[in-house]
């Protein structure tokens, strides 16, 4: 059984009359990637900042490595052992990549060799480049490097890919996957469904300060994702009518594509067998449910690219 590195119980955080985090409880275990998935304003960053000891909580309890985030002496120990990539990470513009990482590293009594971290993040060729001249993706990599310079056991990555183009986003994913291989526990926050599904061992969906569901992506999909869908491209009305009569739950869109929801593998084979019997020679696709379907089911909306709930 892996050790708990984070333990949160009935955590509440209020700003005046606004409840940003509303009675949430969860744990994060060593070596796992734990994702907080939710739209802007859901309470993700607030929760993370409470755990990073830079924001006081209103009620409940939170501990990191067993140290209480509300106790001054404990926070010193926590800060030594965590690495943080804050939302919208920035550094001193006129300092180079190495100088900025050295700056953060210099704050710790024990730290890794800066060049070792730079190699790990694959930014060796930019080591003397000023921070202001880096692309968005490279800046995030420098941020991750700065988060690792103290060789932390737990790394907080708050919206690490927000605002990055798809290529840069995948580069950051690759970095996170490498961190996992190093055995670090990672607390990731994101509003990108795919990101959470690809990277996380467990996901907590948070909305309006409350955790709606929590579990591994597979379990969440299986419990809340709904049925698989068989898609027959340009199938047309006639085939749709036949499939509707035999299997029910069939729909046709404006492009004449047919969508048949299937409960299990057996029903899928039966559908395919029927299509074979009908000598249908159409393009067939199997669509499996994703975390987006889970989110739609449990929250009742989708998240836009900008992180807004619709």
């Amino acid at each position, binding site marked *: 059984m892996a050790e708990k590195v984070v333990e949160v119980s009935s955590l509440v955080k209020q700003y005046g009359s606004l409840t940003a985090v509303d009675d949430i409880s969860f744990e994060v275990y060593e070596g796992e990637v734990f994702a907080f998935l939710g739209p802007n304003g859901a309470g993700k960053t607030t929760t993370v900042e409470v755990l990073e*000891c*830079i924001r006081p909580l209103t009620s409940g309890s939170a501990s990191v490595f067993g140290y209480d985030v509300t106790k001054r002496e404990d926070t010193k120990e926590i800060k030594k052992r965590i690495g943080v990539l804050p939302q919208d*990470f*920035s550094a*001193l513009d006129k300092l180079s990549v190495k100088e900025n990482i050295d700056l953060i590293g210099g*704050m710790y009594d024990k730290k890794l060799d800066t060049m070792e971290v730079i190699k790990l993040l694959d930014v060796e060729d930019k080591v003397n480049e000023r921070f202001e001249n880096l692309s968005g993706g490279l800046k995030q990599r420098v941020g991750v490097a700065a988060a690792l310079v103290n060789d932390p056991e737990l790394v907080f990555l708050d919206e690490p890919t927000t605002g990055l183009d798809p290529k840069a986003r995948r580069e950051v994913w690759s970095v996170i996957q490498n961190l996992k291989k190093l055995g670090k526990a990672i607390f990731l926050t994101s509003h990108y469904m795919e990101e959470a599904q690809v990277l996380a061992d467990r996901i907590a969906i948070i909305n309006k300060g409350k955790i709606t569901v929590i579990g591994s992506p597979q379990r969440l999909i299986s419990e809340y994702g709904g049925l698989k869908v068989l898609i027959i491209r340009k199938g047309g009305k006639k085939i749709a009518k036949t499939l509707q009569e035999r299997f029910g739950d069939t729909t046709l869109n404006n492009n004449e594509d047919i969508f048949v929801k299937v409960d299990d593998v057996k029903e899928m084979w039966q559908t395919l067998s029927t299509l074979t019997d009908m000598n249908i020679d159409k393009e067939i696709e199997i669509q499996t449910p994703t975390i987006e379907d889970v989110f739609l089911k449990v929250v009742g909306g989708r998240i836009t690219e900008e992180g807004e709930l619709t």
Partner: protein
Amino acid sequence: MKRTIIIFKAVTKNWLRSRSGLFFSIMFPVLLLLVFGAVFGSQGASTYSLLIQNLDIDGTPTELSEVFVEALNSTETFTITTIPADITDLRSYARDVLGPLGGNIRILVISEGFQDNLINGTLKVRVGITLNTTLTMYQYYALSMNETQKEAIEQGIEQMEQYNASLPDKKASLAVILDDSDQSSGIVKSIIMSIANAFNYELIGAKNVVTFQEEPFTERQLRTIDFYLPGVISAFIMTNGIIGVTTNTTEFKRRGIIKRLSITPLGKIEWILGNVFSQTLLNLMLTAIIIVVGWLIFDVQAIPDVFSILLIFLGSLLFSGIGMLLSGLIKDVEAASAVGNAIAFPMMFLSGAYWPVEFMPDYMRTIAKILPLTYFSEGLRSAMIYKYPEGIITNTIIVAALAVIFIVLGSLVTRWKEK
């Protein structure tokens, strides 16, 4: 301490590589010193243009009117232009002569009969003095005189009175025409009157009873630029603190740099000290550059000593403290910059950094007394120029006290934890 030094190095390096930061912190004060130095740095006195119309002519100007003009010229205060005697519209003539950028019009008219009236007037005064003296003596010694002596003296007095009465009672007159807007009109009038008085005394044979001797307050004669140089240093140490620290700290805060550092074991006090040390280094560099430029170009007197360096450190603390206080109270970078400017610029001009507080009206002097820069600039001037111990000690104590107050307030409002 290790973390403070790392912050100090990083913030300083970041600033040294910023062209705009370098320009406004170092180059701009140097440029301002060069401009003011060029205007006020000259050792020679200013000269004023003066147009003179001499109406006291008899074919050529009379001897005494010429001597008077020469006396004015010998002061080396005026650039004299002569207006022909037949010109009647003096203002138009002067405007034509001076041209569109010629500055203020100053005209002196020596009236017709200047020499005659001067001679007659002098004679009348001298006869009057003699008559007066004789009368006094006569009244005092009359009792010891016989009748013959008395009669002779009374006859002499009567003749002198008749002669004095026969002398015309006209005075040699001078007329000056000055612009109302001319700020130097007082100086010009004073100089002309001084020359006229000197003429009066010389002609009546009066000797100076009161003598006037000028001695410099400092070992070497100070010039305006000597006063100005510590003012530039103190004013820009103030702006580097109030505007620089406010803008930088608010920008670091906006970009999450302070938040990122607060998640490490770095403490708030270590962060503040690192920044204050960086400001102190910047201000020592500014002082060194300004003094070197002052020495090389304007031959200024400023000699920094241990008190100057102590004051610069205390000033850096004081104004960084005000900067931290502002950046702690204001979230928005633009607003922080605007408030910083709104505080720094009036303080720069009301504190006596650029001109003596004594030049200002009473209500402004009262304002100057509550401005920290007043004590800082006065202390720095006392330490660098006047070498005036009381001024150094008093102002250093005030600056130190204010530095403690503002650095404590600044630290209290600097948030190391979110709300």
